């Protein structure tokens, strides 16, 4: 299902987007590279601090030094925070430990027994960026609870009366794409071979299920060719 997820994430990127992807998240980086190579050549990609890298996935994952001479420059970490605050970044992919139907994110902890890296920028970006798309390599109830155990990042917000930021607008998993809307969460599509009932059974929060649930389209021929070129060894499938 890796390539279905990569194509699904890439489908959220349009020309004109400035997309932040982390460094340690092969799925997200692959999706960004795929979009720039096929459906959204006018989008800008930030891989860590590297702007619009012209490189394959393995090189991108090797870190900033590996991309020397193959980017449109570097944005220091603090500047990416400023970009988030000024909405100069329009979309970010995040892989949380948990996400709930209201778009709350947990990258911190569950109870007292399991700990994750910490707040990072998750406490900041949901109220700042126009759109966040969360992704989970494995769709399981404990990752999609009714309410996250700890709210690292709260969905949506506004500052003054200038604009509304949506926070998390979708969750992409190996089983489905869920739309997070102000009215609640909706099953937008299921992965090939997966039924709506399976998805509902493995989701801890309420899901509106339309009468006809589309199947998440995998990569088309052009995208498959691009993925073979960008990631011939399949690093994108190594997401933890």
């Amino acid at each position, binding site marked *: 299902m890796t390539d279905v997820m990569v194509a699904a994430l890439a489908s959220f990127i349009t020309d004109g987007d400035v997309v932040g992807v982390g460094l340690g998240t092969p799925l997200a980086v692959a999706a960004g590279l795929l979009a720039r190579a096929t459906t959204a050549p006018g989008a800008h990609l930030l891989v860590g601090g590297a702007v619009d890298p012209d490189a394959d996935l393995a090189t991108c994952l090797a870190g900033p030094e590996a991309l020397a001479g193959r980017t449109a420059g570097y944005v*220091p970490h603090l500047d990416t925070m400023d970009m988030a605050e000024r909405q100069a970044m329009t979309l970010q992919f995040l892989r949380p430990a948990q996400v709930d139907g209201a778009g709350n994110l947990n990258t911190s902890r569950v109870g007292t027994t399991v700990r994750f890296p910490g707040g990072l*920028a998750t406490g900041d970006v949901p109220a700042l960026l126009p759109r966040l798309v969360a992704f989970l390599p494995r769709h399981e109830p404990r990752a999609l609870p009714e309410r996250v155990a700890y709210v690292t990042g709260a969905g949506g917000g506004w500052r003054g009366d200038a604009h509304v930021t949506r926070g998390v607008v979708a969750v992409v998993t190996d089983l489905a794409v869920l739309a997070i809307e102000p009215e609640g969460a909706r099953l937008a599509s299921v992965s090939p071979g997966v039924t709506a009932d399976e998805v509902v059974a493995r989701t801890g929060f309420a899901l509106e299920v339309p009468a006809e649930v589309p199947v998440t389209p995998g990569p088309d021929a052009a995208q498959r060719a691009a993925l073979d070129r960008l990631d011939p060894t399949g690093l994108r499938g190594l997401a933890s």
Partner: protein
Amino acid sequence: MKWIGREEVRSLVPDGAWVAIGGIGSDRKPMGLLQALVDAGARDLRVVAFLGGVDVELLLAAGVVAELHTAGVALDSGLAPHYRQARQDGAPLVIGWSEGALLAAIEAGARGVPSLPCTTSPRSGVVATNPHLRVAPDPFTGAEVTVARALALDVALLHVTAADPDGNLVVDGDPGVDGELARAARTVVASCEARLDQRAAGAVISRIWVDALVQA
């Protein structure tokens, strides 16, 4: 500003000091300075690591940390085991921040104001669990904002690419929050990979902020 030996670092870091560590994740961490502190018996440090990694693991493993403030700690290989254990045990005390909030706290200290607002969502659990963060109405608009209390940093430990003859620090790559730490901390110690013969051109951390240099 003067060059010192590694063995003199300890004299600049009293027990119980607030010590901020520069670098990000596994990038430009002052491991030599930290090891020098551990070897010399430093104790009860209040450590601030904006984004930590092996630096935090080293100090936690050595048992020299009384309190840890960070927006996140991870190793290239994944979770950081000592950090994870500390958070599970509740000891030493780990206070979680978001990057924006911690930056505001550092900047408030640098500017000499008691606190600074930040764009961290007031609804983030980070705000509820951090005594250095409060939600308050902005004095002009009345909007609820998250406000970070200034951190009073005693020491900043940095690792940089080079120092020029005047003691200006050159940083190749992402400077992280090193510039902010240099302005905020009372004492700044930098380990340097190279000593330049000529004055550095371009962006530097000014010698104004630098107290001691150590050859890495």
